[in-house]
């Protein structure tokens, strides 16, 4: 009988341990380890300057708004389960929340659907007062609890220009989060579209001046009546105003991030300082299975004595 010797080789005991490990794996062992989870409110600028097509990244859309949406899809994909996301829109000087933060893994399909439907035509007015909008976003975020972080995404295009920046009433750093700048640093024309989203050219300086006259009561801005007529026929250009956004980030205690690649934004948002450590049950089966795999492979390793073995 061949089973007569109980002096077994090392690889036999490895296999026994592997079998035990796999048997243990069938019991689904978990370990509760603290992991960072995040609670973010994403506020997206939907003013028309966000239609400027100045992104040139392969396989990603060119206009600022679509690029932003693609980046947010990536962020949602990368944030760990247990994190929460809410969505909001910014235009004029207000922020409107679509929904309060909800857990991302369970509700991913709904969040992605809503994100995909964000459109410049949802804007309830056309002006864009960045500072007031940002302050409003901070106030809204504050109402959603201390652990809620704000991600305010804008190109910083202030229309009409304000002579002076409004004063921030809140406490800097009370709401943590990111001010994300989108767009290119070089000036680019702003596409003008009709309500069916068909392109009808670009905004000209004269058009903007006219719009400004139309709601001068609300904005109180200087309409620049002394502007020369030929200058008014020039295109109205927009570029990412990083100087202003960095200044606003400093005033409000947010961090500034320039959106260039979705992956970089996603990584920035996963910085531990923006998350809370929560015990999340980690699946341990992969450790046991890796061990079993190694044990099965060990007998096939070239034996260290093989080279010295005599034929």
């Amino acid at each position, binding site marked *: 009988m061949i089973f007569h010797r109980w002096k077994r080789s090392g690889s036999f005991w490895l296999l026994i341990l592997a079998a035990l490990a796999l048997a243990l794996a069938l019991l689904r062992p978990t370990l509760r380890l603290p992991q960072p989870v995040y609670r973010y409110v994403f506020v997206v600028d939907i003013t028309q300057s966000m239609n400027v097509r100045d992104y040139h990244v392969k396989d990603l859309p060119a206009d600022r708004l679509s690029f932003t949406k693609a980046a947010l899809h990536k962020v949602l994909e990368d944030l760990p389960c247990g994190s929460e996301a809410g969505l909001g829109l910014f235009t004029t000087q207000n922020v409107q929340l679509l929904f309060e933060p909800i857990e991302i893994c369970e509700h991913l399909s709904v969040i992605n659907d809503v994100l995909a439907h964000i459109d410049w035509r949802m804007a309830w007015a056309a002006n864009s007062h960045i500072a007031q909008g940002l302050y409003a976003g901070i106030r809204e975020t504050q109402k959603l609890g201390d652990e809620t972080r704000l991600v305010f995404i804008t190109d910083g295009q202030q229309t009409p220009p304000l002579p002076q920046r409004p004063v921030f009433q809140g406490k800097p750093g009370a709401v943590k989060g990111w001010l994300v700048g989108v767009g290119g640093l070089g000036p680019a024309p702003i596409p003008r579209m009709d309500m069916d989203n068909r392109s009808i050219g670009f905004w000209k300086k004269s058009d903007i001046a006219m719009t400004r006259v139309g709601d001068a009561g609300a904005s109180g801005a200087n309409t620049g009546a002394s502007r020369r007529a030929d200058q008014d026929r020039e295109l109205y250009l927009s570029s990412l105003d990083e100087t202003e956004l960095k200044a606003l980030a400093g005033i409000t205690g947010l961090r500034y991030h320039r959106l260039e690649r979705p992956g970089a934004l996603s990584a920035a948002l996963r910085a531990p300082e923006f998350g809370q450590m929560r015990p999340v049950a980690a699946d341990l089966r992969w450790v046991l299975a890796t061990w079993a*795999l190694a044990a099965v492979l060990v007998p*096939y390793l070239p*034996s260290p004595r093989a080279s010295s073995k005599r034929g």
Partner: protein
Amino acid sequence: MSLAFLQPWLLALSLLAVIPFLRTGQKALTYSSVALIPEDRLSRAVDWLIRCAAAASILCLAIGLAGPYAREQWIEKFGTGAHIVLLLDRSSSMNDNFSGRHMGGGVYESKSAAARRMLSQFVSRRQDDLFAMIAFSASPIYVLPLTQDRAAIAAAIRSAGGRGHGLTNIAPGLAMALSQFAGQPVTGSRIILLVSDGAARIEEETREQLKHAFRENQVALYWIYLRNPTGARLAQKPKNLASGTTPEYFLHEYFNTMGVPYRAYEADNPEALKRAIADVERLENRPLRYLEKLPRKDLSGHCYAAALLGVVLLAFAKAGEISEWPA
């Protein structure tokens, strides 16, 4: 059932399964006269069995590590209920409170806050219904698609209590609400629940388009009109027939001629709002076919169980190995 992997790249480990066919896992013994040993079919079969068991174990472990799972599945269920699109006015006037008669508390509650509270309760009681939400002021805002995701609906209704901005422009809101039904199966009741505190004139051409869409999609309309006590009554013909001053009356007339089920509720206090919602709840209970989501199912356990069998077999084989010829 569709299969997917959490970490598909780990499937590359399954290439290791060829190793048992290329090398032998047993220790070679030296024997002076191997050529004398006759061809033994049983030994060959055992050798192949061991190689196959090792390869199968490696394969199962590699697949298991890659994390196979069955995707979420939808199963069909039957109940009673409705597809309900909540069309909420978010114009700045919704920030005002109901002034005038008050039945209960909530004296200082804004109209949008009262509407939010009622809608939360309404939604939480209607477990089989699908809900969508559109907010509108000067332009319509797509808030949620038709969904059964109760937590998402609740989160959207909670945020609808915030400050509104802009004017009331009703037609684009109705058009977007109607578009929610496009491509959805016609089952149960289809309802647009319009909650607004005012109306606006709708162009003749748009009226025709909306009427057509309402009929085509078989959508019923409920209008909860949060009336200011000084505001126009829906049923009362205004003395001044210019529609610019009393758009609500004309909108009500127009809705009545659309040829689809239509009801209007004038709610000038939170209690009336509550009654209106109770009415909707009572009326709209038709058989509804809906889909329920089965969560994704992890399948790696099956792989590990199969690998366990292979490893046990290998351990037996290893136990039978000898390290030297018995004397």
